[in-house]
Structures are given as C-alpha cells and as structure tokens.
C-alpha cells in the first residue's frame, strides 16, 4: 500500500489554477521530494494532502484512508494521529517555552514519544526552558519539526523546512530527517534547494504550474540530461546557436532567459572550442561557469527558466 496516492488533483483560486490534474504516488518508507519554483503549487498540494485545504477535484488517499469532507470527524482525527506536519511559516507563541509548546502538541495525540525524548531528537535540550521568542531561526524550525515528530508519525510532511536557514542549521535538520527515516517513516518534503533534494530524497517530482513535469530519482533525472557536466555562459550579442550546439563533446545547447547551458561529456574538451567559436562569431563572453549537472539544470532544460528565481 502506498503512503500517499493522489489522482487528478485540482485546486483553483479564482482564475488561478494552483494544482492542475496532479497524480502522485509515494511508497511507504520513501523520502519523496516535491521540487519547483515559488508558485508551482507545492504548498497547495501538500496542504490538500494534509487535509487542510479541500481540493476542487481528484482523490487523495493517505495510509489507505481518505479525508472526510465534513471537518473534525473521528475518522479524520484517526488519520491525523498518524501524520507529522510542519507547515511553512508557522510561528509558535513567542511567550511559551520549547517544553510547554511540545507538551501542548503532545496532549492532542493518544500515542507518541515523550516530550523529553522528542526534545532530545531535535537536540534542543539546552533550550527546553527558553521561550520561543529567544530561539534562532534554525532552533525554531527544529521545534516545528519536533512538534511534527511528537506523535511518532508514520508519514511526515515537511514544507520547505530549511528555507532561510544557514548551512549548519540545514545540516542539523537533515540529520533529524535521516534519523526519522531509520525508523521506517515516510517523508514528503518540498524544497527549492537542489542539494537538499539530492541529499535527502529517494525520488523527486519536479513541479511547474501545478503539474508534475518530471519524476524519478535525482540520479535518473540528472542522467536524463544525457551528460554530467554543464557549462553556463552568456555573450554580448546574438549567438548562432546551431554552430555552438555542434561543438565537440556537446550533448545539448539549452537557451534560457539569460544566457545558455551546454550539457557536455568533458568540460576540458568543449571549453577551448567554445572560446574559439565565440571569437569566430565576433562576440565576447560576459559570464562563464561550469559545474556538475544538478536537478537545477533538469528544471532549466524542461522550462527554460531558473528554478531558484525567488
């Protein structure tokens, strides 16, 4: 039985279609990433799955159960017992301490970890008697994840859990997620950090305009580029793209809003030829970088846009 199964999900806000016929299947024990730019419909999708937003169409099945349309039913509560939820931008009451906040959340669930154990899981032992208002951004986010873990959920939703955190705080959270997965839990994560998706997720779905435009493991998606190195460059005039695409070692030339991407087998083979070609066309380079192919490049290839535009 899949942990999450949704079909033809639709959600409209006025004339805007936030989710447009989305299908998703997340297996039990999997860490699944929803990847996409701001406004792609990630949060709307997650909130529909969490039972917070009713969809305009389509079906949702979580852990074999469905949300009842009338709110606040026993069946819904039974399902909520098994979910761990961290929402984007929840601010806990600043006047409560870490421990008090967790006690409150723990009291809503029949089963779960102890408050002490949960505090230890997110390494907030030293802050347990501090008020939420005194915590750093990373510590607040760990508290949010602690509140999601306190009922020992089977399925954990994390909506942009590391947005705005510094690298150390991000690493801390990744460890908490890895620990949760060791216990066999399923994770659905949204992010616009490629590295996060590559590090944590078994599979990712790349979303754009409310639809899944690519699905697979991070390795598979990157492999779909056909080459594992990327040269990013831009020039000060109009590039003859055909000539550039035929340079030695080039797999594909991708034009995007500003500049071009070349997916290549070996950077050192293509670069000298690229310089010569640009000179032949009478142009000058205005920017040049090279990197190992990432999910970001997959998104650029699919949409012609940069993923992290925000």
């Amino acid at each position: 039985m899949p942990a999450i199964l949704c079909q033809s999900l639709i959600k409209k806000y006025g004339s805007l279609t936030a989710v447009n016929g989305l299908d998703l299947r997340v297996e039990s024990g999997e860490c699944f990433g929803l990847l996409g730019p701001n406004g792609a419909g990630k949060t709307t999708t997650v909130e529909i799955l969490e039972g917070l937003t009713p969809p305009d169409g389509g079906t949702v099945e979580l852990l074999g159960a469905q949300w009842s349309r009338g709110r606040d039913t026993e069946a819904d509560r039974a399902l909520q017992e098994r979910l761990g939820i961290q929402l984007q931008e929840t601010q806990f009451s600043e006047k409560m301490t870490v421990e008090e906040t967790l006690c409150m959340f723990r009291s809503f669930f029949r089963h779960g970890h102890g408050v002490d154990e949960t505090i230890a899981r997110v390494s907030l032992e030293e802050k347990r008697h501090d008020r939420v208002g005194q915590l750093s951004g990373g510590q607040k986010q760990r508290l949010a994840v602690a509140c999601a873990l306190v009922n020992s959920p089977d399925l954990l939703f994390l909506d942009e859990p590391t947005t705005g955190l510094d690298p150390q705080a991000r690493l801390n959270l990744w460890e908490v997620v890895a620990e949760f997965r060791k216990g066999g839990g399923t994770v659905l994560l949204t992010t616009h950090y490629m590295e996060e998706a590559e590090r944590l997720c078994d599979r990712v779905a790349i979303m754009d305009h409310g639809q899944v435009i690519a699905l697979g493991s991070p390795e598979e998606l990157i492999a779909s580029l056909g080459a594992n190195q990327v040269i990013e460059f831009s020039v000060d005039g109009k590039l003859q793209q055909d000539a550039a695409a035929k340079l030695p070692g080039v797999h594909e030339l991708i034009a995007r809003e500003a500049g071009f991407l070349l997916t290549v087998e070996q950077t050192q083979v293509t670069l000298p030829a690229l310089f010569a070609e640009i000179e032949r066309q009478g142009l000058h380079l205005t920017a040049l970088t090279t990197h190992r192919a990432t999910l970001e490049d997959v998104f650029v290839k699919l949409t012609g846009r940069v993923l992290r535009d925000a």
Partner: protein
Amino acid sequence: MPELVKVHHPLIELTKVRIREFLRQGEALFWVFGFPILLTLALGIAFRNTGPEKVVVTVEDGAKNSADVFAALSASPDLKVNHLPADEAAHQLRIGKTTLLVQAGDNGAYIYRYDPTRPESRAARLAVDDALQRHRGRVDPAASRDEKVTEPGSRYVDFLLPGLLGLNMMGSSMWGLGFGLVDMRQKRLLKRLAATPMRRSHFLLSFMLSRLIFLVLELGIVLGFARLTFGVQMRGSWIALIVVSLFGSFCFTSVGLLVASRARTLEGVSGWMNLFMMPMWLLSGTFFSYSRFPDFTLPLIRVLPLTALNDALRSVISEGAGLANNNLELAVLAAWSVLCFIFALRLFRWQ
C-alpha cells in the same frame, strides 16, 4: 529515558497555554486589573459626596432694589449668589455657569430667567422663590423638618462600580479572545492546530476556562479595592455574583469568538469589536442610568448583553438580590452566548 514532563489532558494543556500567555504579557494585566481600579478611583473621587452642593444663581445689577435681593438670597445656605451687570449675567446663564437669573422688577415683582429643561435650574427657581417670599414676610402654615440620609449604597460610586465590573468583563473577554485568535491566525498557528487531532471544542473551551480563572481574580481585586477606598458594600451573596459573572463572561467570550471568527488582521478585529462595544458603553447603564433614554428604546437597550449584565450585577451588589430576581437578565446573557457560539463555530476560519 526517564520522563521528566507529564502531559495532561488537552483541555488542561490548552488552558495552561492561555493563562501563561496572558500572565507573560504585561500590558494585558494592566488593562484587566489596573484599568478598572484607576477608573473607579478617578470617577469615585470626581463624584465623591462633599455635602450638598450650592446652587449658583445670579442677581442682575441695575434695578434699584437689586442690592436688597442679593442680600436676601445670600442669607440662604443653599445658594451661592453672584451680583453682576445685565450683559455679563446673561452671558453666565448662556454658558451654564449660573442656573438662574433674578431680576428685581420696579413694582416689587421678581422675574426669574432660566432654562426649564435643566433640573438644577428648576431646583434653583424653587429655592430662590422660597427665600425671597420668606424674606418678604411669607409665613408657612405647617412646620417641616429635614432628616438627611447619606449612607453608602446611594452614592454615585455605588452605582458606578457594578457597571465598571460589567464593562471590564466585556472588554477583557472580547479583547483577550479576539486579539489572541487573530494573532494565532496570522501566525498560522491556528492552521497548524487544525492539522492535529485536537478537538475544536477543547480549543474554544480553553479560552472560556482561562477567562473564568481571571474572572475570579478580577472580581476580587476590583471589589476589594472599592471596599477599601470607598466603602462600597457587597450586599448580595458571592455565589449569586459569581454565577452572574460566569454568565456574563461566557456571553462575551462567545460574542468575541464570533467577532474574531473570520478576521485576518488586528485592525479588522479591533474595528468589529469597537463597533459592537461602543454603543453599549453609552447605552447599557455603565456610567449613567439608561432610563434617561426615550421609553420606546428601553426594550432594545435591555436585550443588549452589557445592559443585562450590568443590571444583574447592580441588583446583586447594591440591592442584595438573588438569582431568582435576575431570570430575565440571565436568559438574555444565555441567549447571546448560545447564538453567538453556534454562529462562531460555523463561520470560524482556521487559516
């Protein structure tokens, strides 16, 4: 790992959160406990009983026996008499600094100029005429004697205090709830709570329960203060007072819940709160009796929740009435509680 923290029933945990949030917020403490005390103190001092007040009347200068009139009136202990030129006297009457003008006519008659819609002007006319007639030799056919009564219970502060309690219950219930809820909605904490198996009723009840605990404190502090400073007596039973206060508190918590059920901003909820509360500040007999309003408005004024609460509090505190005398008031409060609670649950926006 040994468990260090004990987690209680959700209703208890939620109520604890409400109480802690309140206690850790200095300003709120002032508005709930400090403000009514300051208001009682200020109004109690402003309207303290300083013996019977003298009525100010003015004798118009000019006529030849005006000095005689002035002397006659000055002898009266109830009057404070001015003697001014005609135009200045007229000015004083116009701006309300004097209640009555006395003109001495040439033929020995007196002319009184005053505004008959001002009760103190009518009282001044009676006192002045009485003094002048006696001065001219009137003999009263029957002897009369005054017995003066100025006991606690009939003073303005005795009238004021139950109204202030009612007003404060309305304010603290509604503001406490309204601001708390909108703040939680803005911070998306309500949404987060809605994603847990928490029962909606537990959440809403926690607001009521925490209010009750503060209610007891509020009653004790304000009544105790009024007793110590002004000697205000509590004539009814404490049980009756607490029951009336519970009804009032539930009622306004419920109204507050409705008012805050959809608002997304603090400005928005403030506007609605004020729209609901301002008319009652004036109409519900907190600072002055609502019987001054026209008769046809009285049934409407009596179904306002603050009117019902003030009337019930006043009858228990000042008259020593029991609950049975306040059936109507309690019914009004209960009706508002139930109706608002039902609507609030239907309209409530969790995100």
